[in-house]
């Protein structure tokens, strides 16, 4: 019987070590957010990127942040590709959305939202055919009360290739934020 108890305890400890050692999202520690954004296979459409090798593009077109709360950190890697045969300078920045293009059910980001967005590399210089991952992170300060923010709000990020020409292209990504309720 003693061996049975010892065996059970040992097996329990080993299995617990395996299971609890795995990364999991637990409500036991809600102040530590899940920060998704490590680009993996599911985030890249390799076939499309191969087809667009000679085109300049930005991906993704839209990012959704759910269950957000002040103090939390939520990020995603914006992928910017220079399809030209020469190096190209880009500007990556927070952008106020065009008011007539806000997604239904959402409202314009608060006026100070630009201060809450961190762009890891705002002026990337990309080599020909280079794809660069630029981290965009939303961190609303804890001094902002959740109830003072809209339940659903939208901001954009803008990527502009700085050409110095009279006509330039700006590519925007929509960021849809839903607050924890």
């Amino acid at each position, binding site marked *: 019987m003693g061996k*049975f108890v010892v*065996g*059970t305890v*040992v*097996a*329990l400890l080993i*299995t*617990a070590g395996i*299971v609890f050692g795995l990364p*999991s*999202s*637990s*409500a*036991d520690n*809600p102040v530590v*957010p*899940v*920060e*998704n954004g490590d680009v993996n296979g599911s985030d890249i*459409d390799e076939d*499309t*990127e191969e*087809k*667009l090798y000679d*085109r*300049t*593009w*930005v*991906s*993704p*077109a*839209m*990012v*959704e*942040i*759910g*269950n*957000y*709360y002040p103090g*939390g950190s*939520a*990020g*995603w890697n914006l992928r910017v590709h220079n399809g030209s045969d020469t190096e190209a300078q880009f500007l990556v920045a927070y952008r106020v959305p*065009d*008011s*007539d*293009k806000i997604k239904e059910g959402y409202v314009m980001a608060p006026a100070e939202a630009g201060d809450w967005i961190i762009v890891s590399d705002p002026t990337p210089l990309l080599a020909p055919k280079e794809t660069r991952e630029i981290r965009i992170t939303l961190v609303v300060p804890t001094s902002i009360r959740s109830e003072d923010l809209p339940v659903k709000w939208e901001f*954009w990020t*803008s990527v502009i290739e700085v050409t110095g*020409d*009279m*006509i*330039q*292209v*700006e*590519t*925007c*990504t*929509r960021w849809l934020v839903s607050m*924890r309720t």
Partner: protein
Amino acid sequence: MKRIRRLMLSLALALMLLLSFSVPAFAAVADDIVVTATPSYISITIAPDTWNPAGGSVKIDKATTYYANPLGATTAPSATVADGECTFTITNTSTEITTLTGNFPDFASGDAMTNINTGYATNGANAFGASSYISGAAWPGGAVIMQSTGSDPIKSSLAATTNLKFGIAMLTKSGDFSSPTAMTSTITVTAVKS
């Protein structure tokens, strides 16, 4: 044999206990921030990327309407705009339906005209007006006012991988030009998922 049975029984018990602990932990995922996106690509280019309204190095005149129209710098497009009446081609290889908007900021340097923001049919002593038009649209009824910021879309809900041809109409200011220095403005065409 008995040892093996005991070990198997121990493992089974351990698993049952673990399941009872782990289920609530995994069920609590809803409390965490969730960030999601699917692979989707916004990709447009515009050619040409320059425009001298009067053509070549010709200087513009006051109170004159110029068109980004290959048929002539002061030639208005037809009642239904044809491809050949549009100087600019947007090559769209986006994988998403997109909305395209064109903003035409004030000119800087030289005489520095400001955008009157009411379209190509009106100007001011020091202000120009501008509108965009696209192939297949009615002229002038389908023209879209180009403001310095916050313009309406040149084209809403452009299908993925569908190109677009467009032109610009600009009425220069009514006042005299006096500066020998060239003035410039940078038109920005914005693409965003519809």
